[in-house]
């Protein structure tokens, strides 16, 4: 069976499109939106397979064959970027349609950061970047693990591009808020970005690719987390313990 047959059959959005009786000659924005979303879902399936395959190949790769190895690592990195972009798009679509299953749970923050580090360990190793995790093992917080994984994963990826050779993931409790910091020892954010981070609304050149999707997604996810009227926040700073760029997420 071809992969496409399989995916379209098992795609939950496919059914809702087929049941949509308002199909007219001219595509409405709703049906285009649904097609985009179902295609993204479809692509995510394929991308997942590619990631799994590449991870498997990498793990078994002959480290003597270094040229191929580092190319594979780079491919792995790019495909993970695609995956995280797709995940963010799909999430934003669902949030817009009010069908995202926001699902906060009690999470041990240190475990969470270690799991994130492990997802990126091959890439960090190949770039020769040291990653440190500083978190109190007893610190537990209440958040949607998949969404925050997307936010911090995105910031970590970003830091990997701009750091010199070191990144720190730091978590602590700061005045009733959980603060997760992604700090690097690169040259820091340009002044314009810091200013725009304060303005916080517009799309900015955060991903290097220039879509602004990552920061927009992060700010949106942060604000979804609320408690007693307080909302989560995302900030960019320069300085921190490594005197480079800092991505800061605060959750109530």
């Amino acid at each position, binding site marked *: 069976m071809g992969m496409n047959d*399989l995916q379209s*059959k*098992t795609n*939950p959005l496919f059914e*809702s499109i087929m049941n949509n009786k308002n199909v007219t000659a001219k595509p409405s924005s709703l049906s285009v939106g649904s097609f985009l979303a179902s295609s993204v*879902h479809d692509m*995510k*399936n394929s*991308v*997942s*397979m590619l*990631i*799994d*395959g590449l*991870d*498997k190949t990498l*793990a078994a790769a002959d480290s003597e064959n270094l040229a191929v190895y580092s190319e594979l690592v780079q491919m792995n990195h790019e495909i993970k970027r695609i*995956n995280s972009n797709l*995940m963010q798009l*799909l*999430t934003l679509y*669902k949030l817009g349609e*009010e*069908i*995202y*299953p*926001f*699902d906060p749970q*009690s999470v*041990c923050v240190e*475990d969470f950061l*270690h*799991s994130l*580090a*492990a*997802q990126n*360990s091959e890439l*960090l*190793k190949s770039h020769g970047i*040291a*990653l*440190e*995790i*500083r978190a109190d093992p*007893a610190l*537990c917080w*209440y958040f949607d693990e*998949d969404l925050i994984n997307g936010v911090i994963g995105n910031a970590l990826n970003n830091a990997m591009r701009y750091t010199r050779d070191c990144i720190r993931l730091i978590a602590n409790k700061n005045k009733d808020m959980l603060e997760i910091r992604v700090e690097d020892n690169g040259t820091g954010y340009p002044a314009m970005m810091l200013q725009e981070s304060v303005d916080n609304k517009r799309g900015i050149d955060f991903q290097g690719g220039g879509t602004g999707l990552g920061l927009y997604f992060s700010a949106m996810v942060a604000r979804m987390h*609320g*408690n*007693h009227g307080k909302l989560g926040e995302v900030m960019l700073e320069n300085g921190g313990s490594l005197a480079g760029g800092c991505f800061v997420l605060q959750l109530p």
Partner: protein
Amino acid sequence: MFPNAFSTPTPEIDISGKSVLIIEDYHAMRSIFRDIMRGCGADVRKITMVASGSEAIASLNKSQYDIVLCDYYLGSGRNGQQVLAEARIRGLITLDCIWIMVSADKTADTVMGAAEHQPDAYLLKPIAEASLSLRLAKIIKKKQVVKDVFQAMEQLDYPKAISLCDERMAADKTHVTDLLRTKCDLLLKSGELERAKELLEKILLERDFPWAKVCLAKILFKNKAFEAAKTLLEKTIAVSPSFLEAHDLLAEMLQAMGDLEGANSVLEQAVKLSPNSVNRQKILGEVSIKMGRLEEAERAFQKCVSLGENSILKSEGVYLSLAKVYSAKENPDEALKVLGKLNKSFDMDAIRLKVKAVEGMIYHESGNNKKAKLIAEELGECLGKDDVDHDSERSLEMARLFMVTGNTKSAITLLRCEVKNNPESKVLLDEVNEIFVAAGMGEEGAKLVEVSRQEAMEMMNRGVLLVSKKQYKEAIDAMRSAHKAMPTNVRVLLNLAYVLIAYLQKNTSEPELVKEARDSLLAANTRSPGESRFVRLMGALNKLSPPV
């Protein structure tokens, strides 16, 4: 000083002795899952891989698995959630079994299915070995912490489960939230509303958990504080629009308040979030019928039928409802076709009379009175043969048909019996009254209902009265005959257990009487879970004779 991420501490779990079942329809993905499990330390010889829901059920039927890794979308046939529900309901997995559901994409259906059939974790593809390993370690630890609690719950020993929760919470800070939630649930199940309320208010001071707000709303609902509960639920939904339990409870409450329009719009929103819950679609269909919206009802019940096809939770009720909708739409052929479908997937012996009654009504509504009467006569001959279990729905369907075909006497006998079995159920009394009204016997019916209800109340209390006069033997006899007359009356079941326990407390233990009391209590709890009297009586009985 700080550990480097590359040396991520591998969690101290050893799963080499554990048996693993991988359920995934796509071949390439199956071997990826197997490699990941091997990477986590599983022994390849103990890994079984299957490609479909039915193969999974067959494997689970044959052997016990410690870990199940299951894809949510399994192509045609059962989905992962349906496999899990079936495995739980048929007892194919134990409390120790770790069930991990995997999907490419997060939807309300995949992560917020029926609360009682939640897996231990949901993971998004692609799953990294390190994440899975950490997750397995966490689940194993959590299972150790809550195992006794769930065991006590399975034995319906709620007081013990509650005290175990307290004990664990004091010792284990990581699982406090889970344990608090379980404890609230247990307090509700035991009918200890005040204690539950106090605890919930304390929890909510710390954090706005949507589950805690819904729990609190449940208590307000039980105390008939409808407006307060409604406000609380509406606020909860505004902050957490994807928390489905809040939608479901609000819809239930609006129905109880008579606001069908409101209930309908809440359900529409919930169905948009999670279209694949049979129960929710069924409730939506019922509300639509009450509002006379036959098109919507048809759509909802059709969805129920198609969702149920692969599910162990399928019920004949939605087929009957769908058939009735077609009949109301003056399409008897389609209605009969739906009934015909029941043949394929149900044990017809158990539901034959009920289906026949609905069939008779379809003929009656389409003007074929001759055929309706024939069926009614056939059913009339089966009356009084009490070789089948009591079934309220069946009795009501039969009574409806008897009424319209002129056999008023049998209809009244059936309806009186229903009233006596459920004298405190407003829903049922309303339905019975409606049948009388439809037959043009509104006034007479209301009187009959009231008389039967009082007769039942009198019989229900006779045993308790005799116990207060210390006439234990007579009390037991009275409650036994009440039980015979009203086999599914919950209060009778509880009172029978009460008089038996009162007798046992004064006399030497007799195993048959202990069994009779325990059976009565369990039957009462099945019909009406969460009665505080059930918990108290079960506690007293367990003191006399601990459960085996």
